[in-house]
């Protein structure tokens, strides 16, 4: 990918996020998702908070359908791909799947809190934490006691 655009979404509004760090010159877009706005009925409080986050980022702000807006933005910039950051949202995965039909999508990850790729039982927090704790503390917790 030589000339990507960045798709910035609501799970990574960090000006030091990996997408901005790795592609400091790439045009970046935020889309107010009409679908989510209708579904979630977000209050003005939440919209203002997000907007305040956005104006600190080097992003173009638009409103509409996410896939259509991202592809339009990509065309405007003659992009050869889309870079974004990971999100656990099922809607994010849906959007990526559709975008990939038009352009390659690279999904970057933020630094993990628990840097462990093995299986973790998520049935209860206690089971998760039994495994995750050592990684969360980078192995330091027991050393300090």
């Amino acid at each position, binding site marked *: 990918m030589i000339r990507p655009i960045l798709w910035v979404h609501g799970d990574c509004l960090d000006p030091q996020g990996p997408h901005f760090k790795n592609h400091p010159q790439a045009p970046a877009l935020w889309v107010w998702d009409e679908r989510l706005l209708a579904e979630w009925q977000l209050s003005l409080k939440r919209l203002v*908070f997000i907007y305040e986050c956005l104006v600190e980022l080097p992003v173009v702000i638009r409103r509409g359908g996410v896939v259509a807006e991202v592809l339009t933005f990509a065309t405007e910039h003659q992009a050869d791909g889309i870079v974004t950051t990971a999100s656990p949202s*099922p809607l994010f995965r849906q959007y990526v799947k559709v975008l990939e039909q038009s352009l390659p999508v690279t999904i970057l990850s933020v630094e993990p809190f*628990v840097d462990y790729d093995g299986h*973790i039982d998520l049935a209860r927090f206690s089971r998760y934490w039994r495994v995750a704790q050592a990684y969360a503390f980078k192995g330091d917790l027991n050393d300090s006691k």
Partner: protein
Amino acid sequence: MSKDMRRDFTDRADLIRYVGEQFPEAAARDGRVSPIRGGRRAAEVQLNRLETHRYATTRNFLNGSVSRLSPYIRYGVLNLAQVRDWVLARATPHQCEKFVNELGWRDYWQRLYLKLGQGIWEDREPYKTGYSPQHYQDTLPEDIQSGTTGLVCMDVFSQELKIQGYLHNHARMWLAAYLVHWRHLRWQTGAKWFLEHLIDGDPASNNLSWQWVASTFGAKPYFFNRENLERYTAGLYCRRCPLYGHCAFEGSYDDLAHNLFPRNESPTAQPGRKPKAKRR
């Protein structure tokens, strides 16, 4: 070509006015905005106020030292690793053990979200309240919306939710428990109400915490009594409540369990136990 929205504003009032104009439906529902500011700069100010040693011992009290970082973590303005590294650079791992554990809750909810997707809106397990899902009503009661139940604590929490877009974690739990176990509201309706207003509203943290309270993601329902609420609020609401001494939360946990869950043959409720705080 789509129209670019404004990025430059003279001040916060200018930005708020513009957002209100661009999202008239939201402004018409409720034109109030939170004093909590968005953005990385505001996040770093909040991070610098963090007192991890006091957090461990006071966080369950409404006037305790909580981080108020959740809105910034919610939107990835700060990520968990950054916050963890920040505290570990300033305290020993043992001193910030509790705080890092709470960050772990956020990571846990996100991992579950990745696994469950829209399933976070469905009961993960059967209710342990003695009631079926059909027992619970779908509509948020009007007196909750308007903050006119007469219970000072719940009315204040309702107002704070709508005005500040933020509630202390313990207040979220009390309000959720009141709605589900005293008012028999479906947890999904309460969760949606919270998500509309909470600045840090995250579907996974929010919904699975509501499920924990309801008992559809946990072994027992969470409930509380007046004594518990009075203790952790330092009597702030009880002192001025006209229902003091005879409110719906009055009584021992055994009495309340009997009244709230009469169909339960065994005392399965989990009184007064607080889950690991899922929001800071």
